[in-house]
């Protein structure tokens, strides 16, 4: 569950309008807090040799099921510090981690609902990372890394926002 923050977006607007230097500083500090998780998460992705041969990426593939490419999957794990659009519950994310490659997301979550499926069993027999997290926030890569981070990234983000707020008040007082 994300931490709910009040006034973060307004703070970003105010920073950009009145203290451009601080506006650049805050995302950097947030990124510093998130980068370790990303790095660890990328390490949890299997290489191409640990993947089922049929799922591995290959040329002249015309199917719709996404094939796994370790380098593409690693590129897909990243972070963002810009506010997102509101989700269906009205929340806007101020800092987030994501695993946006399709194959990487499949590896992350496969077996959460159907642990006995053939595909999952085959992959598990070859190579399977450990599931960590709870309920929908349970996964093998990003969720696992975030879980193992024990809130350090979250605290770093909040600290960065608070620091920016204090610096802004000092600069405009």
């Amino acid at each position: 569950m994300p931490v709910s923050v009040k006034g973060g977006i307004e703070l970003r607007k105010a920073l950009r309008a009145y203290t451009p230097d601080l506006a650049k500083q805050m995302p950097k500090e947030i990124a510093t807090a998130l980068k370790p998780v990303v790095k660890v998460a990328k390490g949890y992705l299997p290489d191409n040799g640990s993947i089922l041969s049929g799922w591995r990426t290959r040329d002249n593939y015309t199917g719709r099921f996404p094939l796994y490419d370790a380098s593409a999957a690693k590129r897909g794990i990243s972070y963002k510090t810009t506010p997102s659009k509101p989700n269906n519950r009205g929340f806007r994310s101020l800092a987030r981690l994501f695993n946006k490659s399709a194959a990487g997301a499949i590896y992350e979550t496969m077996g959460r609902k159907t642990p006995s499926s053939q595909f999952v069993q085959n992959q598990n027999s070859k190579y399977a990372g450990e599931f960590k997290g709870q309920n929908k926030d349970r996964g093998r890569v990003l969720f696992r890394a975030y879980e193992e981070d024990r809130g350090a990234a979250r605290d770093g983000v909040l600290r960065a926002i608070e620091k920016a707020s204090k610096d802004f008040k000092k600069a405009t007082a």
Partner: protein
Amino acid sequence: MSIIIDVAAEFTGKKAFKQAETATDKLTKSAKSLGKALGVSLGTAAILGYAKASVKAAADDQKAQKQLALALKNVGLERDAASAESYIQRLQSEFGVVDDLLRPAYQQLAVATGDTAKTQKLLGLALDLSASTGKDLSSVTGALSKAYLGNNTALAKLGVGISKADLKTKSFEEITSQLAKTFKGAAAESAATFAGSIAKLGVAAANVKEIIGKGIIDALVVLSGDKTVSNLATDMENLATYTADVIRGFGLMAAAIQKIPGIGGLTGANIVQAIPILGSYITLLNQAGAKTRRIEEVANQKNPIQSGSYLNKTTATTTKSQKELLKVTAAQLKLAKAKSIFDLQKIQIEAALKGKISEEDRIRLKLMQAIQDENISQIDTYTKALSEVQAKVITLQATLSEVYSMDVGNPFIAWEIGLDGVKRALIEVGGQSIELTNTIAQNSLAAGLAGGASFAQALSGARYAAQAAAAAGISGATGVMPQVPTAGSGGTAGSTAGVTINTTVQGSVIAQNDLNQAINDALAQSGWAGSAIGYSRQAVITAI
């Protein structure tokens, strides 16, 4: 599919909440939290930005007002410009729709209808339709104005439940009545919701911005000595910077004052007034600024009740207004004079003066004429004359009452006595003269007449009086009372006294005629026997 972990998030709400946030943000930026924001986080750039926005808002508002006034003037509704503005302001506060939207809508409808009442009615309907259908006010207003001019296509596209058949067959009044019935109260209901409340706050924020912008323009115009705002950008920026610093200083001072024990509850203007020495200067400045604003409002006829109290005769604006007022007054006098030619009341007064009337009536009519003409000098003259005449009338009435109160007796009493004598001597009865020689009968007759009895009753009484006197042996009866013939069947006045005839009817009497015949026979026999008996009802009754 992608995996996302939100590390930190902010609740901003859905669409409605977003509108609320936008409106609240505006309000926070512009009004309520201005001081707080100044004291906490906003810098010179924010003040400058707000000042610019306020000046722009005020200028736009003024421009929109003038455009509306010009449009109304062009369609012959110039005199309704002030009422149109007040109507727009009322709608703005009531329904939370900004005047920037209402003015173009009003203008469009006014141009189409050329009538203030219809314009305001249609604008109210447009607000209801807009609130109910969700379409913007300008679209609804455009559709209504087109429909008023005979083009119902746009109205059909609004989707307000009017069928094509209705649009073809019904008149515009019927259609609008139906729409007003269908969507009645939609705008008011919408304004009563949370979103409506936020809209009202948004309107208030916009108004705050306009008011502050107007103040800035006025202040800068005064400072620069220029009557335009075109060259004020530099002055404005300098002043905004200076103002921002001053306000920031005020924020710090206000915070310090609130910490003083005993006056912590002070808020708003009271904090400023509590500042020693400086507070009184600021209050004076505030009063001077407020007075300047009110002078302008009065000059613009926004507050006519207060006219006079704030008018400064030295200002060119006021002088101009007075000149315009004089022009209007002169025009009204001319109009009144022209109307007097056809004034029926005046014509009637003129006609009455030509007739035969008393002096008092003549003065009254002249006075009425003077009042009609509003001729003060003549009103005074005739009022005095009327008072004099009325005084004379009162004197005359007093004199007459004195005369009536004098006891001069009846000057014709001798005539009455002579007439009594004549009455005693001659009595006209049925065209015959009867001479009463008996004194008792004469006196009785006179007394009866004097007592209000009819002549026949009095004469009967006189006869009985004479007979009674004769029976009692009283002298004075020098002759015999003649029998006065009675007309018709009246009573016993003609009957003779003291003769009684008893007769026995032989046989049977069955009908009334038998009885009459028997009595007649008896009377005839009595006559033959030498008894002179008159035929009268008394006799018949006695026989019965």
